[in-house]
C-alpha cells in the first residue's frame, strides 16, 4: 500500500508516495531524478548505490523508504556538480580514476564519509572503508590515489 513520506535529500525536503518498504535507491532515482545513485545488485554487496545517511555511508538498495524519513540523506548530486565539483570529484577527474565509472559515485560517497571522520586516512584505512565496494574494471589503485589526493587537498 502506497503511503506519503517526507524526505530530506541534499538539503531539500521532498514529498513522495510509495510503498513503505520501497528500496530508497528507486525513490532517489525515479522520484527525485538523482541518477548518480546507481543500482548494482539490490542486496548490499557492491556499493554502487551508496549514499550518506546522517553522514554515514549506507547502501540505498537495502535501505527501506520508511527508514529514510526523518534523516538527512546526501547523494553524489548533493556533494557537487560538474560545474562545482567536490574535492573528491575533482580528484577522481585529476587521477582519471575510472574506466566505466559505474562503481565510482558510490565509492565517492563512502570516501566522503571516511574523510569526514578521518582527515588523513592511510591507504589501508581507505581500502578497509571500501570493503563493501566492488570495481570490475580494475581501477582500484587510481581510486585509492584519488581519495588520497582529495584528502590532502581538503586538509590544506
Amino acid at each position: 500500500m502506497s503511503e506519503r513520506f517526507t524526505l530530506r535529500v541534499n538539503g531539500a525536503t521532498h514529498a513522495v508516495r510509495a510503498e513503505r518498504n520501497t528500496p530508497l535507491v528507486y525513490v532517489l532515482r525515479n522520484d527525485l531524478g538523482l541518477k548518480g545513485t546507481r543500482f548494482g545488485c539490490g542486496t548490499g554487496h557492491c556499493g554502487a548505490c551508496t549514499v550518506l545517511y546522517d553522514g554515514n555511508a549506507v547502501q540505498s538498495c537495502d535501505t527501506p523508504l520508511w527508514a529514510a524519513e526523518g534523516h538527512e540523506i546526501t547523494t553524489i548530486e548533493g556533494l557537487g556538480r560538474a560545474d562545482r565539483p567536490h574535492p573528491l570529484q575533482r580528484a577522481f577527474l585529476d587521477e582519471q580514476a575510472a574506466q566505466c565509472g559505474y562503481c565510482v559515485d558510490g565509492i565517492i560517497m563512502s570516501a566522503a564519509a571516511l574523510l569526514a571522520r578521518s582527515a588523513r586516512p592511510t591507504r589501508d584505512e581507505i581500502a578497509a572503508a571500501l570493503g563493501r565496494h566492488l570495481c570490475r574494471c580494475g581501477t582500484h589503485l587510481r581510486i585509492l590515489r584519488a581519495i588520497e589526493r582529495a584528502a590532502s587537498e581538503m586538509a590544506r
Partner: protein
Amino acid sequence: MSAPELPLSLRTNPRLDRWVRFGAAGKVTVFSGKVELGQGIVTAIAQIAADELGVEPEQLAIVAGDTTSAPDEWYTAGSQSIEVGGTSMRRVCAEVRSLFVEAAAAELEVAPADLEVRAGEFAVPGTDLKRSYWELAHKVSLARDYSGRPVLPRKSALPGLVGTSAPRRDLPAKLGGAAYVHDMTLPGMVFARVLRPPAYGARLVALDEAALRSAPGVVAVVRSGSFLALAAEREEQAVAALETARRAARWDAPPMPGQTEIVPFLMGLPARSSTVYAKGSAASAGTQRFEATYSKPYLAHASLGPSCALAVAEGGRIRIWSHTQGPHMLRGQIAKALGLPDSAVEVMHRDGAGCYGHNGADDAALDAALVARACGRPVMLQWTREDELRWAPYGSAMAVKIAADVEPGGRIVGWKHELWSHTHVKRPGRGEGIELLAAWHMDPPVPVPPAADLPLPAGGGDRNAVPIYDFPHQEVVYHFLPEMPLRVSALRALGAFANVFAIESMLDEIAAGIGVDPLELRLRHLADERAREVLRAAAQAAGAKRDGTGRGIGFARYKNLSAYCAVVADVEIARQLRVRRVVAAVDAGLVVNPDGLRNQIEGGIVQAASWALKEQVRWTRDGVALHGWEDYPILGFDEVPDIEVVIVERRDAPSLGAGECAAGPTAAAIANALYDGLGVRARHLPLTPERVAAAMN
C-alpha cells in the same frame, strides 16, 4: 593507397559524410561505429579526429554507435578500435582536411603549402588571409567516397593531441549524475523485468498470468512460450511482481551435467579435432620431454551494472537504446526476431557499465523491444544481478596440454599444444539464426545457432595458441567442443588467456627443469626485437626481488599481431597467496593516449589477477549456482597489488590494440611466482587456497 590496404571500416563505409559533418559555425561532428565501453575509446578517436582536422577538442563532437547516423563498424571488440576504427577515422579526416586546404588555397590564391591550420581555420601565417571549414563548407561536398588520394601534410600551429593524455570526455558526467542508459527517462516510461528460467532449457509449464496482471502497478505481462516479462508503473512494483511470478511459476527443466574438475569435464565432451597450425617436423631423438596439462574454468563478465535497455514501439517501428557493442548487428537481429525489416529498427548506443565482451546488453535490448511492443509505452528493462551472473554468456572453460622437447643444450626444438574449448564468439549477427536469449525462449523458439569459432591468425579458442617463440617444430591441435552445457561467448582475450597461461607456465617449468633463468630461456627463443625489448623493460623496471616473495614472469604478443606485453608479478604466501606487486611493459606502437593505455593495462592486470586467484562459475544438476556476488567473489580493494606500467614508445610504428594484452601474461606471472616462492606448480585456475594446498601435497 590501393583499396585492399584500407581498413575494413573504411572499405564498407567509404562516404566521407558518414564520418564527418560540419555543423553551425565552429562545430564539427564526427561519427564512429566504435562505442564507449569504459575503455576510453571515444576520447581517443576524438583526439585522432581533432588532430587530423586541425580543430580544437571543444569544437568537435563525437557520435558513437547509432544506426541512424554513424558508420557500421560491426563490433567494438577484439582490441580493434584504435587499429581499425581509429585508422579509418584518421584517414577520412586527413582527406577531408586536404579537400578543404585545396579549396582555401584556391580562394585565397595561395599555394596549399602556405596554409597552416588552427582551430578549424586555414591561414597564411603573418597575413590576414584565412578561411575556415565553415566558410568553405558550401563549396566542398563530403557526399563523396574516400579516394585514398595522397593527403597534404598537416601543417598546424598547435602540437598534436595524439600522444597526449587527454582527459576522458565522458567522465565528468559519470562522476555525479545521469550518464548511462540505465539513467535515461522517457515520458510515460514503465519499468520492466524478465522472469528467466531456473536453468538452461527449462520450459515454463504453469503460471497464473491473471493474478500477475492484478499485482500492484503492473501494466503488462508479456508471455510467449517460456519467455515471461512484466512491466509496472514503478520500478519497485516491477521488482515485487517479478518475485510473485518467480514463486508462482512452474518449470520443467532438464538436468545439467554435474560439475566435475574442468579437465575431465571438457575432455569428456564430443570434440571436432583439427590441426590448426603446424611447422617443421617432429623432434629428433635425445631430447628431454616436458608434458603438462593446464586449465581455466568458465568465467563470468560480472559487470557492476546489470544489463539494461530502453525501447519505444510506435507505428510499426522500434527505437532502442542499448549498451550493445554492435548497434548495426543488433538492429538486424532484433528485426529478424520481431519479423520487421531492418529499416524499422533503430539502435542508439548509450554507455553502460563495464563491458569485457559479449554480455547481456544485446539480450536485454530484445527483451525491452518485446515488452515495448506489447504494452505500447516506452520501456526501461533491466536485468537483475542474478540474471547478469546466470544468463550473460561466460568465457569458455579451457584445457591445454603441452608437450615440449628440449635438447641437452637447452634449446626447445619441439612444441605440441592441444586445446579443448567451446567457441569464443557467439555474438548476435555472426552466422545464422538469432543469437538473443529471448528468441530461444519464445514460442515457437528459434533454435540456438550452431557454434563456430574465429579462425587463426586472430583465432578464438586458439588465439595465441601458436607460440611466438622460435621453436623449429610446432603443432597446435584444437579439440573444438560444439556442445555447450553452459552459455558461452566472447570474454576479454578469448582463448589467449588460457593459451598464454599454459605456454608461459610450461616455459617456466622447462626453465626450472633445466636450470636456466626464465627470462633468459625466453630471450634465447625470441628473434622479434620488440618482444625482447618489452621483456627486458619489464625485468629492469621490476628491479631486485624482495625477500620472502616469489617472482614470476609472463609474456605474449596479443593475437601474435597486436600489442606486446610482459608482466612480472611478485607474490607473498602467508595465510594465502597474495599478489603484492606487478610490473608490466607494453609496446602498443604509436600510443594515442598514454594514460588511457595505462588504465587499460592496469585494469587488465587487476581483472586477470581476479580471474587467476578467485573466479569460477559453479553449477549443479539444477543449474548454474550463481545468484549474487556472494557466489562469485572478485578481487577487492584490500587485495589489489601495486602496479607499475612501462610504455615502450614506438611513435613511428602503427598503433596496436592493447585492451586485452595483459590478461594471459598476468595469470602466468602469478602462477610462476607461486612456484618461485613456494616450489608449488599450480596448473589449474583459479589458484584458490584449497588448490594451492592440494598442489603442495
